[in-house]
């Protein structure tokens, strides 16, 4: 009987000691470390420049979460909104100062479009020059002389039908060192079925803190463990997208080591999420 009591007592003390150790260890970690331990992500930057990224999706909550290719930065998508170019100049939610050019885009903005394909079709020497990267057909001086004479014949001013995509994100530095993230590394992929139509970098609109005081460089600097909530956006045009078709949009970090975009598989690549899976921002 005495032996049983002694054995049970030892077991109880051993369990209590184990629980105490776990509690002490847990409380010694920062909240960020406890989160990373729970999700299995690394605390220190992982060098992954030659492999395919395997960003982790959030397992809890409604906002999808992805990691950048080096697993140093996490991007949680809180919501999104798509605005047509007819409405972009009259909306008041996204301020002009945060757009690329510092003003609201013009709903009827115009760009010069030069039809190089028609130029090459009409002038075989130009086609030979361009397709040989400047080695055949004509000299570089002759090419620029040709452009001086004929550029206007093949150039028109058009208004491209456009859509503006905005993403409210929470971006977090997962490491124990200061890190930088280019907003342009968050991209939007426009697809029709399995066909990639176009890619746009976000940062065309960005209302978060800037890493530099001079110029408008959408680089986000984060201290260890720091989180920043911001809106980043892009513009897609009808140069390669027929908006009348059923277009699917995906947003995230371009996978490292992707040899060509036909390998992009948004259903499997965890660094990219479907925009349709995000919460739509319906606020005015």
């Amino acid at each position: 009987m005495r032996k049983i009591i002694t054995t049970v007592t030892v077991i109880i003390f051993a369990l209590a000691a184990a629980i105490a150790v776990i509690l002490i260890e847990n409380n010694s970690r920062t909240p960020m470390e406890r989160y990373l331990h729970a999700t299995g992500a690394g605390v220190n930057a992982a060098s992954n420049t030659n492999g395919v990224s395997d960003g982790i999706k959030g397992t809890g909550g409604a906002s999808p979460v992805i990691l950048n290719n080096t697993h140093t930065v996490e991007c949680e998508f809180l919501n999104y909104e798509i605005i047509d170019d007819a409405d972009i100049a009259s909306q008041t939610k996204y301020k002009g100062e945060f757009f690329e050019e510092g003003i609201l885009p013009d709903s009827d903005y115009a760009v010069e479009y030069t039809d190089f394909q028609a130029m090459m079709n009409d002038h075989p020497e130009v086609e030979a020059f361009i397709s040989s990267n400047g080695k055949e057909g004509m000299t570089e001086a002759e090419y620029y002389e040709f452009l001086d004479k004929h550029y206007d014949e093949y150039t028109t001013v058009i208004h491209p039908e456009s859509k503006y995509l905005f993403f409210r994100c929470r971006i977090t530095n997962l490491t124990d060192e200061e890190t930088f993230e280019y907003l342009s590394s968050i991209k939007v992929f426009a697809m029709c079925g399995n066909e990639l139509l176009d890619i746009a970098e976000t940062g065309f609109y960005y209302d978060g803190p800037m890493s530099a005081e001079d110029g408008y460089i959408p680089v986000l600097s984060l201290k260890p463990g720091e989180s920043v909530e911001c809106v980043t956006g892009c513009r897609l045009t009808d140069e390669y997208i027929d908006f009348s078709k059923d277009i699917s949009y995906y947003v995230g970090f371009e996978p490292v080591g992707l040899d060509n975009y036909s390998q992009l598989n948004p259903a499997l690549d965890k660094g990219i999420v479907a925009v349709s899976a995000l919460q739509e921002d319906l606020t005015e």
Partner: protein
Amino acid sequence: MKKTILAAIFAAAIAVSGVAGFATRANADGTGNTTDTEFSFYNMNSSGHSVGREKRNTTKVYCYPWYGPSVKYNVEGYHTATNQWMDRSNSFVISTGTQASLTNYVYENGERSARLGFVRQSYAGVYTRGYWSPDSSRNYTIFR
């Protein structure tokens, strides 16, 4: 310590670039993708490439390797019709410390994504690092 030094250098480069005519977002014609982003290439690999970026006009690609062994670079454009990256420039060995403007024909070929291709010149267990932008607001040392 090394990352802290590199981060400080990077921050200084960013600060300088806004003033000294480095690629920034607000370029002369307001449309080029002239923001500098980093590239790196591990010199134990025989070749590699950067991620693709938007190419918005016919200007030269800016490439500035600031650290590591010399590498041979070229510019590639993504041909969506064939889902292939195509060589759209000649190949150039650019020494570390050279700000290079690379003549290319990505935009003329109707391609709207560009990337840098890398070919190793010397085998080494170190990275070559630098900055690049698909478009430029000015020219530096021109490579044709």
